[in-house]
């Protein structure tokens, strides 16, 4: 608990003046024009904005998939980017410290449920037995343990999304980036997914950023970042209980 308390004093994500420019010269487009953002461990924060506002670019920067052009980015207290400097192994950073949940679950269709979740710890070097044990723990936490041996094609959309969430947590990532995780789901299932994300954030002290257009779930966030024309501004959400 001591570690958790310490960690709670350090922002899970801290962005300062983050900029991203695509192209050069006359063709240059500034997708992010100095984003500031602080997200604490255990928080579930909404990121909303119209198409073309820079949501995807911000998510890709946060996910260490693309490199910002300027600014500073810290994950769990570690600087991973600052004005042109970046940590060398972004792939390991993604594997060990960032969980991803996508609009579609994007599970690996040729692996069963357990191995989809266990793959991440295995990639990090864990042996098969302990990786599968961890996967079963997460599947139990997400109430899909009964489908542990099933093929992905045998799962419903909601079950697939839970498995995807389990995968994002498999390496104890302090940050989860969820890109429209409820888009393909009906209201009931969408709210269930949000409840699960909130429970996991609380239980594992994980910071979760949910990119969404979904009007059903926006009222559930306590904090919302609006992004427009490459700039964010924060506002308090309703924090409606589910």
């Amino acid at each position, binding site marked *: 608990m001591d570690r958790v308390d310490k960690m709670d004093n350090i922002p899970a994500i801290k962005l300062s003046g983050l900029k991203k420019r695509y192209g050069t010269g006359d063709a240059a487009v500034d997708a992010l024009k100095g984003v500031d953002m602080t997200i604490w461990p255990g928080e579930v924060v909404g990121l909303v904005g119209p198409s073309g506002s820079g949501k995807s670019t911000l998510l890709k920067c946060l*996910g260490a998939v693309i490199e910002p052009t300027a600014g500073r980015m810290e994950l769990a207290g570690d600087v991973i980017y600052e004005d042109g400097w970046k940590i060398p192994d972004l792939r390991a950073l*993604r594997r060990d410290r960032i969980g991803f949940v996508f609009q579609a679950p994007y599970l*690996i*269709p040729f*692996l069963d449920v357990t*191995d989809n979740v*266990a793959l991440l710890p295995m*990639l990090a070097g864990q042996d098969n037995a302990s990786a599968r044990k961890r996967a079963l723990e997460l599947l139990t936490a997400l109430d899909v343990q009964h489908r542990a041996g099933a093929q992905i094609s045998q799962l419903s959309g909601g079950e697939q999304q839970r498995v995807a969430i389990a*995968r994002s947590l498999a390496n104890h990532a302090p940050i989860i980036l969820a890109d429209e995780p409820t888009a393909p789901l009906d209201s009931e299932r969408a709210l269930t997914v949000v409840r699960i994300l909130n429970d996991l954030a609380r239980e594992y002290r994980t910071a979760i950023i949910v990119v969404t257009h979904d009007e059903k779930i926006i009222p559930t966030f306590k904090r919302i970042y609006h992004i427009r024309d490459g700039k964010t501004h924060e506002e308090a959400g309703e924090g409606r209980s589910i």
Partner: protein
Amino acid sequence: MINLASRDVLHGWGKFLFTGVGLGLLIGATLTMGGVFRGMVDDGQVLIDNSGADLWVVQQGTLGPYAEPSSLRDDVWRGIAGIEGVAETGNAAYLTIQMAHNGKDTRVMIVGIEVDRPNRPGAPPYLIAGRPILQGHYEAIADERAGLKLGERVKIRRHDYTVVGLTRRMVSSSGDPMIFVPLKDAQEIQFLKDNDALVNERARTAANPAFNRPGVPGLLEAAQASATQARSVNTVLVRLTPGTDPATVANEIQRWKRLTAYTRAQMEDILIAKLIATSAKQIGMFLVILAVVTAAIVAFIIYTMTLAKVREIAVLKLIGAKNRIIAGMILQQSLALGIIGFLVGRIAAGLWGPAFPKYVLLLPGDAVAGFAIVLTICALASSVAIRAALAIDPAEAIGG
């Protein structure tokens, strides 16, 4: 670590297997082409081996008797038999003909051998049924691929022959089955003209003032009689006493008898290096083309399979899978496809090989080399897909 390649293959095993079978049929065709070439070489080799000779004595300056026509008088053996180191000689005549049998034409090589005693050079070294030729005329020993049965009578040119023995793998350098007959019969088949031709030839000779001189009685009859005699053979096969150097005897024959003599090594060179050189190049070209086509097909299949997994590969890269894991998955699948293809191809070649009209020889060494080549081709072909996979942007997993 989970083996991603095997999981992916097992997930869509039917499609993968069918693809492997299709590739296997192509590999089978390639192996068969190699087998056809080996069969041609082996046909030449067995022709040399089964003749039981150490030297082939032929008309001076020819590559006879198999690669070029050669004609010798059938008594030259007497002079050859007297040379030191010669153990035995045998006249032989070779003629490839189209023989009518059971309502269809069969191409066979007629071999005339001396039948006065067994195991003369040129005689078939073993029989699988029946007995050797014992009579001086109208008996035959046939290779089993000629389709003749023991005791069957078969018409060759003007006479009927009784099949008294059957043998195996006695074929010409072209793979045509051999039919052994007594030398005199073979000479007649090869050199003697038909009756109409003889009548015409006699009239022509009689009209020639050089042969029909009023002051030289008996000249015309002598000239006409010579036209009805068949006293030529194609080669004299020579067996040497143990320890004799074939080259030395060959030199002696060439020097003193004004004939050409080939050693076994020289005859192998004629039959294998010269006679089938063009065919070998033809088959070699075809094998190269098939190898290139195989590589292109494997590359295309693996590339298509990889492109079908763009999203999965993007996710794998996004969640931190190293390049070598992704490359390994593609390489292993390519190799697995090659292994399935090779197994199917080898089995297919083994099944359809015997149905080919010519001998198809599938050597284990060739199979091993073929397997290594297939795996190399698959590994190289996978590089295209690996390059494509490594170029996939992990951002594709996050909404493009």
